[in-house]
């Protein structure tokens, strides 16, 4: 007895074709979404971008001039954030993954860290305001903003480092220990070099996330207008995301500065997507080389 009849077969194949097209459509929508956003930003913003825009401070009630202080501010903040988050994050991940004995406590701690990775960025903003700005009297400053962004990227950093460490085959550790290396020697000479690509991609993604965040720096680092560049870590700064936000909602000449808003958004997108692209390319390169 034959289990299937041709007509049923045809129906099954037909159904499959239709459903697969739906799946494909969904994927297309995603690509389209990215394309539309980037397209509109470029179409409206590229005219605003020129040498002056990138190298001058804003003038005439921010309706003219450039966004140099914002670019510098964003770079300061995100680099500051990663300088804080990376060493602490990597060290913590090493402890959790390599030294700590797995057990209930470690599981709870990891769960806690995971949770903090999901905490809304605005809550980190509140934390930064309460602790760094007010309690530690740093005021609204690069350092307060970097610490806040650092705290926000820390769980992400720990997570990506842990993943990179887990991806190092145990056989490497065993081989090293089997040769009479101590734990630290094993970590330093074998585990870390092997995990480095993963850690670096995590770091780049961390920087790009910090660069694009607005909510945490709203109360801790960013100001509406300060045309001169920062000279100390206790200075307030302008920042690209916050600049877009204020120009678009709280600015004094919203319509007149529209092209500047697009331009700023475009610069931010280039900055962030650029870093991500570097991370993606770098990761796939290293993966290939590792194999």
């Amino acid at each position: 007895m034959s289990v299937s009849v041709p007509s049923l077969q045809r129906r099954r194949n037909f159904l499959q074709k239709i459903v697969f097209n739906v799946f494909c459509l969904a994927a297309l929508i995603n690509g389209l979404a990215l394309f539309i956003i980037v397209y509109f930003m470029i179409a409206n913003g590229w005219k605003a971008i020129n040498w002056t825009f990138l190298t001058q401070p804003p003038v005439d009630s921010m309706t003219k001039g450039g966004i140099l202080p914002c670019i510098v501010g964003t770079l300061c903040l995100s680099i500051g954030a990663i300088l804080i988050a990376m060493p602490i994050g990597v060290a913590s991940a090493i402890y959790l993954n390599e030294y700590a004995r797995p057990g209930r406590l470690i599981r709870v701690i990891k769960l806690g860290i995971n949770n903090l990775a999901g905490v809304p960025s605005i809550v980190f903003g509140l934390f930064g305001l309460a602790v760094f700005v007010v309690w530690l009297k740093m005021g609204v400053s690069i350092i307060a903003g970097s610490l806040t962004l650092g705290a926000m990227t820390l769980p992400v950093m720990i997570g990506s480092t842990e993943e990179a460490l887990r991806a190092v085959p145990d056989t490497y550790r065993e081989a090293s220990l089997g040769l009479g290396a101590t734990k630290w020697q094993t970590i330093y000479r074998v585990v870390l070099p092997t995990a480095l690509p993963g850690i670096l991609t995590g770091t780049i993604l961390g920087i790009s996330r910090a660069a694009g965040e607005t909510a945490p720096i709203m109360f801790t680092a960013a100001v509406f207008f300060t045309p001169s560049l920062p000279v100390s870590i206790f200075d307030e700064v302008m920042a690209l995301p916050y600049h877009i936000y204020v120009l678009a909602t709280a600015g004094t000449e919203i319509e007149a500065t529209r092209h500047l808003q697009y331009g700023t958004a475009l610069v931010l997108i280039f900055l962030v997507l650029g870093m991500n692209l570097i991370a993606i390319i770098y990761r796939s390169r290293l993966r290939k080389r590792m194999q």
Partner: protein
Amino acid sequence: LFFITTNSAQAGNLVIKGSTTVLPIAQKVVEAYMKENPDVKISLSGGGSSNGIKALVDGNTDIATTSRFIKDKEVKLAVGKNVFPVPFAIAYDSIIPVVHPSNNINNLTLDQLKAIYKGEIKNWKEVGGPDLQIVINSRDTSSGTFETWEKKVMKKERITPRAQVMASNGAIVQAVSNNKYAIGYIGIGYLSPGVKALRVNGIEGTEETTLNGSFPISRPLFMFTNGWPKGDTLNFINYVINPQKGQNHVADSGYVRLY
């Protein structure tokens, strides 16, 4: 290391915070002032009048700009921290109700405005306009503009929760200019061709009606300093209220000069 306190009042460094209403003035003046005194570094942020006062009390700013006078509570808080706020009126402002240019309404009474913002009047035709739902735009609850509106129009009654809340005057201009249903209120400095200004009780909000007090929704704008200002702060305040300098910028930004 982290405990080094930042003294924002260090030489050549001036921090100004507060009302978004005052921002257009402050920004013009700041730019002009910095052109004359290139060694002075000024940072300016909005955020709201309360925010400005708070920053002044916390020592995070040299000048707090406000669109209302300081409150008793705030004075107490300040004095408790050994901060003594000194007010300087720098300009006058009228708060003008605005609608979409296509709206045929030209005038509303204070009572009508109140009824609209309480949510009692829901359609433009109830006040003689087109048969359209009214979309109410209001400001953040702690902005000076809002407080003035609340005091002078709402007479302490509550604005309907259905009102959209905008973070700035500019946002209201934008929202109203794009929306034929909308009503909003903005500082006189933000009037633009995109929106239609309404008369209140038959009186048009102008420099003249503001100065002579006949326009019912107006207020002075302030800068507060901690104690009598010194150094750069003093210079800056002097610059702002100088009729040949700062006050010209006040007029440029559409506000009403002191004299």
